[in-house]
């Protein structure tokens, strides 16, 4: 269409030469000296009486809102336990919504990073948000302590330097998948499994890691199934799975779809003796109310948080949680979030220098080093970061639901620890 070309392209080509390049101007972190502190990445100055500002980004809207909200509460309780003060200043936690996707994480991180007074960031819950958000924060010299992002790449030895500011108080899928595969193979003596994921990055990755480990041990993965998280009619899928006669179905997916599957499996013949195992995403009273009596016998691969293994304070933590929010924990990662809060407090207090006039100075590089160097026994187990930002240590366990009353939810009792 020559006429169209004449009308549009020619004037464009003519004016192309006139286009100037966009002006640059990135701020970024740079060395400075303020008060008594010199730091290669910059120094934060907090006047007397001003708050220590902690940023946060989690998913607090949409289908996964419970996941993020639960973690916000975990961090809030950690701060409250410390008197809501760090280094003599009040704490202010500002939470942004990341919608559990990459562009949401990027926007939220940009918003937080634009505030030059933010000392440190906690969150997010979703790996996609962290992948996009953490480099933006670290570019401004802000550390990010994630609470439920389990993608192995985030703390892999091969990660890029732009993720140097990223650590997490949760274990990688690699450990969870390996431990679940081990339980299924050696404890349950199962040899044939089916996995189901829901198209989320978390579930797909965990299912794949588990299946790979199971295969390596000598087991057979009959098929890798997938659903949409909004699917309600699981009967056809379960009928299909029943024809393969698996010993175990591994479904590391979320509450709604898990509940549909474990309810409907009772209505499909051929799955009576098959064991269904889920993951941390359904360690919540919500699953009991969604699945009803069908929840009994459903198992979850989850870190060992029983008092005798570690985290002596978890019972007290749950009591505080109920008192503050009128309900028990609504998702599975509140203890990790609590530990992220504690890690933040300890690292900041380690490097904060308060001058005689009450002004506090914090060096960014120093804070980075302090986060990596801090070690303590947390609610979710011992916390000590390796050089790639993996701070949690994973002790495997498996739990089984024994009661269909949501009010009885109490990790260790219902679901009851069945392994080790």
């Amino acid at each position, binding site marked *: 269409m020559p006429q169209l070309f004449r009308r549009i392209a020619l004037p464009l080509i003519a004016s192309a030469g006139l286009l100037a390049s966009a002006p640059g101007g990135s701020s970024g972190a740079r060395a400075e000296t303020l008060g008594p502190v010199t730091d290669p990445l910059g120094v934060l100055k907090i006047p007397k009486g001003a708050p220590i500002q902690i940023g946060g980004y989690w998913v607090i809207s949409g289908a996964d809102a419970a996941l993020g909200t639960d973690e916000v509460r975990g961090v809030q309780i950690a701060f409250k336990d410390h008197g809501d003060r760090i280094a003599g200043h009040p704490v202010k936690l500002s939470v942004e919504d990341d919608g559990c996707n990459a562009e949401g994480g990027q926007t939220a991180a940009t918003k937080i990073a634009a505030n030059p007074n933010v000392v440190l960031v906690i969150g997010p819950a979703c790996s996609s948000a962290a992948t996009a958000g953490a480099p933006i924060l670290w570019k401004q010299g802000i550390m990010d302590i994630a609470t439920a992002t389990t993608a192995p790449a985030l703390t892999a030895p091969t990660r890029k330097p732009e993720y140097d500011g990223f650590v997490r108080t949760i274990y990688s899928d690699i450990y969870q998948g390996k431990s679940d595969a081990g339980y299924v193979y050696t404890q349950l003596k199962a040899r044939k499994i089916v996995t189901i994921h829901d198209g989320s990055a978390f579930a797909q990755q965990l299912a794949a890691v588990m299946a790979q480990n199971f295969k390596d041990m000598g087991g057979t993965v009959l098929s*890798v199934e997938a659903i949409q998280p909004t699917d*309600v009619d699981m009967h056809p*899928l379960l*009928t*299909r799975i029943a*024809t393969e006669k698996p010993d175990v179905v591994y479904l590391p997916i979320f*509450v709604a779809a898990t509940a*549909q599957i474990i309810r409907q499996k009772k209505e499909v*013949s051929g799955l009576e003796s098959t064991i269904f195992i889920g993951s941390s995403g359904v360690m919540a009273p919500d699953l009991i109310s969604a699945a*009803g009596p069908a929840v009994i016998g459903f198992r979850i691969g989850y870190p060992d948080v029983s008092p005798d293994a570690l985290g002596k304070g978890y019972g007290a933590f749950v009591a505080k949680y109920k008192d503050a929010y009128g309900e028990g924990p609504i998702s599975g990662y509140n203890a990790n979030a609590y530990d992220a809060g504690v890690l933040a407090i300890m690292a900041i207090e380690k490097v904060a220098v308060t001058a005689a006039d009450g002004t506090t100075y914090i060096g960014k590089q120093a804070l980075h080093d302090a986060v990596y160097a801090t070690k303590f026994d947390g609610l979710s187990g011992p916390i000590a970061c390796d050089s790639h930002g993996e701070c949690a240590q994973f002790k495997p366990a498996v739990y089984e639901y024994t009661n269909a009353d949501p009010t009885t939810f109490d990790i260790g009792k219902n679901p009851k620890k069945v392994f080790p």
Partner: protein
Amino acid sequence: MNGEAVASDWSGSRRTLRQFLARLTFVDVALWSLRILVLAVVIGGTIGTLIKTRYGLAQWFDFIMFGVTIGSIYAQIALGYTMVYGVLRLINFAHGDIMMTGAFSGYFLATAFDRSGFLAAHPVLAVLGTLLLSITVSTSIAVLAERIAYRPFRHVRGLAPLITAIGVSFFLEQTFRGLFGSSVKSYPDLHWQRAAFVVGGLTIPKIDLLVIGCAVASMLVLYLVIHHTKMGTAIRAVSEDSEAAALMGIDVNRVVVFTFMLGGVMAGIAGVFYAFVFKQVYFYMGFTPGIKAFGAAVLGGIGSVPGAMIGGFFLGIVESVGPSLFFDGIGIPAPYQLRDLIAFTLLIMVLIFRPNGLLGERMAKQRA
């Protein structure tokens, strides 16, 4: 606009037969390849699956039963879509959410009945009570939505009504989330729910029969209302030509409100049955079934009551049987993840071959 200039430049003088043929061929080739591709997948997959003999007769029967059950729920929601569309030419995007409001309010009554033991003692009465509340709520919300949001657009052409409907959908979802929270709630079990008839090795769950029967009954009642009552005649007249109907002395407002009421009643019934079969209620539950049901209504020919019914059943069965039948045989992994692919491909194929849906002829011609 200068029509002549457009005409002369865009076709007339410069359009040669060759160009015409070339263009024709491209579209035809594309459409034919699409048809061939779909047919190849369907036939190849079916043969492959049947050769593998992975599924026996019992399984195929189960697949169809599951499909018919969810299909009857789609059908019931689709009836509401189709009624409203027929009369107002409005895609009531919020219809799925109206179903949600019914199911949600029914939940509180049903759990109360369950706790007090009433559900176990008088299951029929309890289900009827739940239905009554659900229908009341969904009908009032449907009528309210019409009164507040849709009525101002009665005479507006264009997309404003559709956008308003999308707004209503968001508003209802978020209101219910704000009121009752975002957690997943679940309906109590009926103690006879697991019971099933067994006929020659095939199992037919009672609840499925109930749901299917109820859907068919609603359709029949609706059909009778539309074709054998005075109000029904008025509805048909308005849907044919609302201005002419007004000239004939029909109160268009009353007809529209009545139509929304019928849609609301259907949504209320569908909501309760959906919730008794699939248990879970939460604020977002109406969206996906709503879209599917809309597809079903179009599939059957939007505006046609039997069409909505057939569309719903057809969609349900294809969704249930399709992944195993078509995809298993050609080795596509995780076929049930592609369930929506099958549903929407079916929809598009129907629209290509029968642009007015399976049963809708009168409507679409006049519509365009």
